[in-house]
Each structure stands twice: as structure tokens, then as C-alpha cells.
């Protein structure tokens, strides 16, 4: 079976000399909920930026739904949705106009776009905000709008880079309800990076651990927990901390 996301030997170095990705290899199957974990500066956002075609890789290959971005960029852009760490909103536009424009940009007709705007406004509980300018929204509502914009065109694959940062617990629960529903009923593949490991533990089934640009673990979350602590059950949070601690100790003893 062809993987929905296939990455082979991906390297990325920034102009300042930082080697952000060192030969990443990953496979994610269609409809899976995958999470990429790792400490700050591990290269998670860089990998997402490369995968979403925001920045270029140095070497290696990747395909999304079997499509090579070098040969068919716009086809990939039509099937992926991206909610990155920072809000990407035009503050001068009204909520519903922003959503409608996004839909039109992705090829929805005017009536389809209007229908989708109404759906998303209801899903993300933005009813009272729909005629407000984005600049007038609260931080949490801006975040909701930012995430809603990523879903306008019914993406087949969703890249979520720290999506719930700045959301209150209610908004966060609502957001995960929408995402898990999409994942289960529409088989949308989810690629999540997060520092909230409880969220990853609750919703994702597969994971990879990225440390200093290298994949240190790739598999199911259950297997990761077992690997770290074979004798008792631990949360992903505790397993992750234990694994990173062990890794740090190994590195420092190597250096000594």
C-alpha cells in the first residue's frame, strides 16, 4: 500500500549553518492520526514547512498522496490544509469574508463557499463574530479562525503545527472534537506537532520522536510507551520525559 505521506532521506540546512533535518525517513498511511514530538529546536516546524512546501529541502524526497511536490505543487496545495504556530489572518477583513475568500481561492464556487463558511462558523462557534473584523477578535477566537481557515477546502491531509496554543480549554476541546471527527468519518490524515503531550496521547495513534534533526523513534504510541517502560503503564508525557532524560544522559556520557 502506498503511504499517504512518504519521506525519504530529507535534509535541510539553514543559511546560518544550522542542520535542521538530518536524513528524515517516515511513512504515514491514509487516515492515520500521526504526531511528531520532540524538544524545542528539534526540527519539527522545519519538517512541517518543508512538507507543506513553504520552504525547500536540500536533498531527499517526499510525496504527499503519491504526488511529488516538484512536479505538481498546486495539486498538493489543493489537498493539504495547514494550521501553523502563528496566526495567518488578514486583520482588516471580516471573519466570514476571510473564510469565503479562502474557499474561492481553493476552487469552491460562490454557493459552495458560502455553505462552507456557514458550516465552519457553526463548527468553530464563531457565530457572534462572523461580521467582526479579524483584528477585533480575542486571541482565542483568532486562533479558532486560523484553524477554520485551514479546513475550508475539505483537505485530505491536515498539518497541525502547535494548533491549540492560545486556545482556552473549551475551545481546545471543541477543536479536537472537530479534528477527530474529520479523521474518523472522512479519513483525513492528521500530521500533528505539539508540546501538549496529553493531547497527542488522547488523539493520535502513531508518533515519531525528532531530536536534533534525527528521528529517534517511529511507530505507535502504545509501542513507544512499552519500549520506555515495559513493566508498567505510563502516560505519553511521562514516557517522553523519561526517554528524553535517558537520551540526554547517554549523550553526556558519550561526550565525557
Amino acid at each position, binding site marked *: 500500500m502506498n503511504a499517504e505521506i512518504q519521506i525519504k532521506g530529507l535534509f535541510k540546512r539553514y543559511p546560518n549553518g544550522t542542520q535542521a533535518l538530518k536524513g528524515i525517513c517516515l511513512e504515514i498511511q491514509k487516515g492515520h492520526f500521526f504526531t511528531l514530538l520532540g524538544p524545542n529546536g528539534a526540527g519539527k516546524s522545519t519538517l512541517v514547512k518543508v512538507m507543506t*512546501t513553504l520552504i525547500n529541502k536540500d536533498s531527499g524526497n517526499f510525496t504527499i498522496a503519491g504526488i511529488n511536490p516538484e512536479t505538481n505543487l498546486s495539486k498538493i496545495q489543493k489537498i493539504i490544509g495547514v494550521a501553523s504556530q502563528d496566526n495567518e489572518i488578514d486583520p482588516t477583513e471580516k471573519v466570514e469574508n476571510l473564510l469565503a475568500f479562502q474557499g474561492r*481561492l481553493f476552487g469552491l464556487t460562490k454557493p459552495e463557499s458560502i455553505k462552507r463558511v456557514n458550516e465552519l462558523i457553526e463548527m468553530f462557534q464563531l457565530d457572534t463574530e462572523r461580521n467582526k473584523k479579524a483584528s477585533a477578535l480575542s486571541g482565542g477566537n483568532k486562533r479558532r479562525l486560523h484553524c477554520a481557515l485551514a479546513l475550508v477546502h475539505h483537505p485530505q491531509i491536515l498539518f497541525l503545527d502547535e494548533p491549540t496554543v492560545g486556545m482556552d480549554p473549551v475551545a481546545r476541546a471543541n477543536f479536537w472534537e472537530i479534528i477527530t471527527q474529520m479523521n474518523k468519518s472522512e479519513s483525513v490524515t492528521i500530521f500533528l506537532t505539539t508540546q501538549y503531550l496529553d493531547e497527542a496521547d488522547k488523539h493520535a495513534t502513531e508518533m515519531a520522536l525528532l531530536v536534533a534533526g534525527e528521528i529517534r523513534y517511529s511507530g505507535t504510541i502504545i509501542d513507544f510507551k512499552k519500549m520506555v517502560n515495559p513493566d508498567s503503564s505510563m502516560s505519553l508525557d511521562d514516557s517522553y520525559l523519561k526517554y528524553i532524560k535517558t537520551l540526554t544522559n547517554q549523550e553526556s556520557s558519550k561526550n565525557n
Partner: protein
Amino acid sequence: MNTANILLIERGIIKLIKQPSAPIMGFGMSLFFLLVYNAGIGGVGSMDAFGSGGYLSFVFPITIISLAMGSSAGAGQTLNTDMQSGYFRRLYLSPAPRWILVVAPMLADTISSLFFTILLIIIGAISGVTFQFGLLSVLGILILSFLWSLTLCGFSAGIMLRTGQHQSAAIVTNAVFPLLFLSTTFLPRELITADWLLDVSWGNPVTYILEGNRYLLAGTSSASFFYIGLIIFALTSIFSVIFALSSANKIKI
């Protein structure tokens, strides 16, 4: 043209309508020049060198030139606003061709400039400016204006994209401003006494748009200025669009 391209150009125009300060200032500056120059030194227009159109027709091209100068920073400012808000990244991830993200605000700016040029032409016609070839003159003026405006927009957008600072979009206007005074802006070539200024004016591209327009208005210049102007500004506008597009590769997403 595909829907995404049209939508992005429409968005650029709507942005200008919502924040019309740059084009309106350009238009206001142009009208001011027309009024002040004609009122101040319009009397010299009775001299033979100004032809039958008088000083008003002679000075009219300067209003067309200053119009685009006043509004050329708009595209750069739109791009900068989108980059600051992060919205440019969202547009960058859409299926729209990436070149249109840079070209759309430039086209919107140029279309706005053309709109105000038409307004100026109407005001000029009402005030007594002569158009030697009638509608063909108007068409020629609009083509020169389009190329001039696109040239300025492209350079201003490109510089802004490279520096990432919206203030830098005004660099082009500041750079071009002295060229206005190193040309046949206020007096015909026959009445300029300094040889050095005459020499400099030959190498100054602004001279060709000024004199090209004068050929179309009162016929006080030769047709060659118009044709050379067309070639010069077709080339500069192509170069400026290439400059803007290549600058887009420098953006840090």
C-alpha cells in the same frame, strides 16, 4: 486567467479602495501641480515654443508622471501588511501561482493609477488641454502611463520585499523625484539655457515620457520621443516585474 489570479487582483483593488490614501494623495499632488504651475508660470505659454496648447497642455504630462509616483508605494505596502500579519504565508500555501501573489498588488496599483489618469485627462480636457489626435492621444497617454506606473510599482514592491520594511517602498519615489527636475519639465528644450541640463535631459528617461506625452497633446515634440518612450518603459516595466518576482524568492516565510 484562472479564478485565483482574478480573485487576488480583485483583492488588491479592494484593499486600495479600503485604504485609498496612497492613490488619493498621488491624485491630489498631481492636481496641485497642474493648478500651481499653470497659475504661477502659465503666462509664458503664449510663447511660440509652447505651441497652440499653451502652458496647460505643456505642463499636463507632469501631472500624469507625479500621479504614478505618488501611488507607486501601494503594492509594496499591501505586500508588507500581508507579510507582517502572516497572511502572505496563507496565500503562499494556496493553489494560486506564487508569482501572482506579487504581481496582483502591482496590477491593482497600476489599474488604480490608470483610473486616476483617466480622471486627470477628463479634468484636463475640461480645463482646455488639447489632444492632438483625439482618442488616439488619450490611448497613447494611457499606455505610457501604464508602463510608467508598472515600472515604479515593480521596483517599489521588489525593494520592499528585499528589505522587509514598508518605508522602503517609498525609496523609488524619492529616487525618481530628482529626475523630474533634470528634464524638460517646466520649459521646452529651446528655452533651457544650461547646456549641462540639456545634455542630462537626453539621458533621462523621464524626458521621453514627458515629451512623448507632449507629442500626443499639443504636438510640441516629435513622434520619436513617444516611440522611444514606449520602448524604454516597456523594457523598464518588464525589468521591474522580473525584479519584483526575483525579490519574492528572498522572502523569509
